[in-house]
């Protein structure tokens, strides 16, 4: 919010959304541009990628797009809402496990049990909490609703008590740790460290068949585009502006008569739902879900793509997530050690020196004032005295 354009004082709490038309430009053109952008994206995902890429690469892209879905959610919660959630893997995992449980049961057939349960040997019949997942009418909604419910539970507890900033980040990370330990500990019913593997069918379609893999890719690409459209509407709505206001000055919003806890809760729950959906689609694309994919480390890796792309923009998280995931595959195939160094450097360089991500370069080049720039001051922090020190008078 460095005031480049001479703006009325109200912009101090209500910055213009990132993609919105700058003052003086008709809103219709902005909408047109967005539509054109979507059409371009759809053409790229649906026409160009399947033609250009081999089956193997297309399957990889499907996997990256799932990560990108999580990133879109993080963009809302963190970039727009200021909640650094380091536990998105939990929601990703809930969605993934719900889907995988259903597919495993479908593979086993009616009355059958997933193979690993016989392998570990202690179970004679299906555990009670597995049973509802046999029905697609339960399992499919659960992939989204279950993560949302967990996020709602945790969020309504902590946001109402004004637990925020780093406290919230650490709690969300601890949630990821607890979830992984629980999954590994309950090996007999969750598959333990191996997770749920070797998923063969997807609603009657054989996942080994490249044609069906391609279908899964199309479903994922379509879902991602739909989520992006939804996100665009969300961040351009009144709610979206309120969310940015809560990020930049929670107390001020409270004094204006809003309830910041509810505003944050909505963003957190939406982000969780997106992560759940991503997890659910990840399973047919990759054929496995395991604790190693959802723990502390993958959870924080979801965040780095968002930071690289530009946390508060619409497309930044998607492009950043895909780029980082692609770079990871490309580099870690050949030089595993180097990738870890590079990943560490990415965290350091991007977050410390380019907090707006690559998108801010674009914005800088176009000399535009962007709400997409995350706040540089420590108002959201738990840093009481530091926050006071750096409190900038509303000039």
């Amino acid at each position, binding site marked *: 919010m460095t005031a480049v354009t001479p703006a009325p004082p109200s912009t101090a709490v209500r910055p213009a959304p990132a993609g919105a038309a700058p003052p003086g430009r008709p809103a219709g053109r902005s909408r047109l541009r967005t539509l054109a952008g979507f059409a371009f994206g759809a053409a790229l995902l649906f026409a160009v990628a399947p033609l250009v890429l081999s089956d193997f690469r297309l399957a990889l892209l499907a996997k990256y797009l799932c990560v990108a879905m999580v990133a879109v959610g993080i963009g809302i919660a963190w970039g727009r809402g200021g909640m650094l959630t380091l536990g998105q893997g939990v929601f990703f995992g809930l969605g993934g496990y719900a889907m995988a449980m259903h597919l495993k049961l479908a593979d086993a057939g009616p009355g059958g049990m997933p193979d690993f349960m016989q392998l570990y040997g202690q179970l004679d019949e299906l555990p009670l909490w597995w049973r509802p997942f046999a029905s697609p009418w339960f399992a499919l909604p659960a992939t989204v609703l279950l993560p949302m419910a967990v996020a709602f539970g945790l969020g309504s507890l902590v946001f109402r008590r004004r637990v925020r900033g780093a406290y919230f980040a650490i709690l969300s990370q601890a949630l990821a740790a607890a979830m992984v330990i629980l999954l590994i500990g*309950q090996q007999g019913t969750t598959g333990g460290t191996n997770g749920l593997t070797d998923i063969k069918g997807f609603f009657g379609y054989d996942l080994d068949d490249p044609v069906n893999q391609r279908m899964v890719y199309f479903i994922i690409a379509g879902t991602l585009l739909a989520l992006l459209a939804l996100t665009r509407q969300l961040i351009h709505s009144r709610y979206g502006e309120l969310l940015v206001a809560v990020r930049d000055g929670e107390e001020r919003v409270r004094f204006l008569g809003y309830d910041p806890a509810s505003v944050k809760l909505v963003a957190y729950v939406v982000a969780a739902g997106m992560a759940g959906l991503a997890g659910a689609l990840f399973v047919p694309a990759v054929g496995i879900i395991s604790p190693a994919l959802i723990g502390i480390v993958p959870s924080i890796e979801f965040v780095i793509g968002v930071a690289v792309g530009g946390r508060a923009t619409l497309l930044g998280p998607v492009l950043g997530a895909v780029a980082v995931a692609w770079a990871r595959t490309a580099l870690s195939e050949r030089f595993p050690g180097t990738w870890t160094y590079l990943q560490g*450097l990415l965290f350091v360089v991007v977050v410390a020196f380019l907090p707006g991500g690559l998108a801010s370069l674009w914005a800088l080049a176009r000399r535009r004032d962007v709400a997409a720039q995350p706040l540089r001051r420590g108002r959201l922090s738990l840093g009481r005295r530091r926050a006071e020190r750096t409190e900038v008078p509303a000039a």
Partner: protein
Amino acid sequence: MTVLFGQLFTGISIGAVLLLIALGLALTFGQMNVINMAHGEFIMAGAYTTYVLQQSITGAGLSLVVALPVAFVVAGTMGVLLEVLLIRRLYARPLDTLLVTWGVSLILQQLARDIFGSPNVQTRAPELLTGNVALPGGLTIANNRLFILALALAAVAALTLALRLTPLGRRIRAVVQNRDLAAVSGIATSRVDRTTFFLGSGLAGLAGVALTLLGPIGPTMGTNLIIDAFLVVVVGGIGQLKGSVIVAFALGVLQATGEYLTTLSVAKVIVFVAIVAFLQWRPQGLFTLRTRSLA
């Protein structure tokens, strides 16, 4: 009764490890509001310091005694480097500090892998610390656990005394309570920050030495410990040490009891739920410094 006491001691010794790790965080996070995810890698550095020293000093006891101060200085120096190079630029952005230091921790882990190799390494424990103390009633307590408890308590005592009595401690407290007023009174706050960071990171080095007594040393040993330690500081309340001390032991006992009654994995979940519930009651932690700010 024996079982109860045994569980209690298990809990206390888990708490002692937590405390030793959390103590450094209580300084850097609690006093300075810096979320240093690389703290776990400073622990690792302390542990590897012990390992390296054992290559040249053959006596296990002597090497342990030497390792304590050396690890303190090694980890502390790494902390100061981190503060000077990165963290001081980010004081106004605590969440970003978290991500940046996570990046640093990745780099340090890979560095450790490249230097010492990915497999875990072992150190030799001094003979004195390998046995058990037999208590009346058929109870035994492992010597190394006792040593860690003693080390943790000594560290708390030393830190408390240093903060209370020395001129440096007075300056640190002044900066914590009111940074501006401290600066106006002629305290070089940035130098105090650096010293605080040295002490906090050095304590991580001590924790690393202690952990060599409990298990193998590996590049990722810090990651698993650091979150529990952060939770200790969050629940204990920032700005002072006593909250962290109480909470470390409380969480340790809760974990041990939960483990005894159910399983390790369920106990972790119980601890997490208990923490969220506790924060409903005291969102700012057990003890807080009263301030007039809104946040």
